[in-house]
């Protein structure tokens, strides 16, 4: 599904083949939890390759006791089709670092919120052309007017919502009335 950057897109078969390659000389026993977090920083979201799964707040915890590694991951949306691919990409990255049998636990509670996207992550979204979520998820109004969303291209606040839903479940579609560019808005949930 061509959406954003194409370069990061690999088929499930490529990933399966790649995930079989665990380097023989790797020494994962020498790595710390911080090292593992740093590894995960390199795993990009397949739909939004500008940000990592850590910056998006999808990785909730790393459990590493020197022998067994498990990662807690939370989906952004119940039906997010990228969830499985993200888990595969994480597994692949960990195996490439020498972890033979990393476990991925899917946790639903507490539910993912856009408040967990790091400040750096939000800035990267903006630079990528996606307006980052505005405000706090707890203040989202049910039937009221939507927040004012600034255009990620020119910064103008004179924007209008085209559609409550955009190219993926996590985004809405907006248009800037100043520079006339359409843009995605990462919805606040």
């Amino acid at each position, binding site marked *: 599904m061509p959406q954003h950057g194409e370069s990061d897109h690999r088929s499930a078969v490529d990933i399966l083949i790649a995930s079989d390659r665990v380097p023989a000389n790797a020494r994962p026993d020498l790595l710390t939890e911080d090292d593992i977090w740093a590894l995960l920083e390199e795993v990009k979201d397949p739909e939004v390759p500008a940000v990592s799964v850590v910056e998006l707040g999808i990785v909730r915890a790393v459990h590493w006791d020197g022998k067994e590694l498990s990662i807690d991951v939370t*989906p952004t*949306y*119940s*039906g*997010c*089709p990228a969830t499985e691919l993200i888990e595969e990409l994480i597994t692949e990255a960990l195996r490439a670092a020498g972890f033979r049998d990393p476990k991925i636990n899917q946790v*639903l*509670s*507490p*539910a*993912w*919120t856009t408040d967990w996207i790091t400040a750096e992550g939000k800035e990267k979204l903006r630079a990528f052309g996606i307006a980052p979520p505005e405000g706090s*998820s707890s203040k*989202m109004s*049910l*039937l009221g007017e939507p927040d004012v969303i600034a255009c990620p291209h020119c910064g103008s606040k004179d924007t209008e919502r*085209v*559609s*409550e*839903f*955009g*190219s*993926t*479940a996590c985004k809405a*579609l907006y248009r800037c009335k100043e520079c006339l560019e359409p843009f995605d808005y990462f*919805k606040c*949930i």
Partner: protein
Amino acid sequence: MTQAEALKEYLLRLADSDMILGQRLCELCGKAPALEEEMALMNVALDLVGQARNWYEYAAELIDDGRDADKLAFRRDAHNYRNLLLTEQPNEDYAVTMGRQFFFDVWHYFTLKSLTESSDERIAGIAAKALKEATYHLRRSSEWVKRLGDGTEESHKRMQDAVDILWRFTGELITPDDTDRALAEAGIGPDPDQLAKDWRGMVNEVLTQATLTPGAEDAWMYMGGKHGEHTEHLGFILAEMQFLQRAYPDATTW
């Protein structure tokens, strides 16, 4: 019925309603009235199918007879489906599609909101996730009901017709049975009286703003979806939805 039985039953109701409405919406893929509407409908459908999977997975663990989420969704016949009758009604024109969505979304929103405080932690977790999504669905469908109801003469007429056609299926949303009551008493499911009050309150508020007239509270209502007694539409939905899994049972590669 024991509480354990009631819980399995209730989980299937939640899952089946999400699944069937999701499937209905997917019928509009490639033929929605506008591109933005198509994206929105498919995103709503995707949320619903994802939520259905979460409910099915929990139900499968409790039922514990070897069936997984896929088998519950794709290998049960109509009389074993527990979805609300509203969710299986045909898309018809866009007023009906959005009216059906609105009546469902109000029910869904208040049900999930209550379930976030369920004494069953797994249910509370799934509901907290789903509630964020259902909030967006409700915002969108209520906007459409208002836009069409308070729009042109033609759109008003169509929206009022949709309310009148669908009204007979709404009683089931807020009429509890033994399962609903048992779970409410156990602190697992929503309080039926509160749910009915909340549903009526918001539906009346939005319909009033939309210059539409709701049906009578004591109107005759179709019931039975929660017990497997469906309208003729469900069989056709399942025939299409389950074809592949029935034709190639236990296939591991698609």
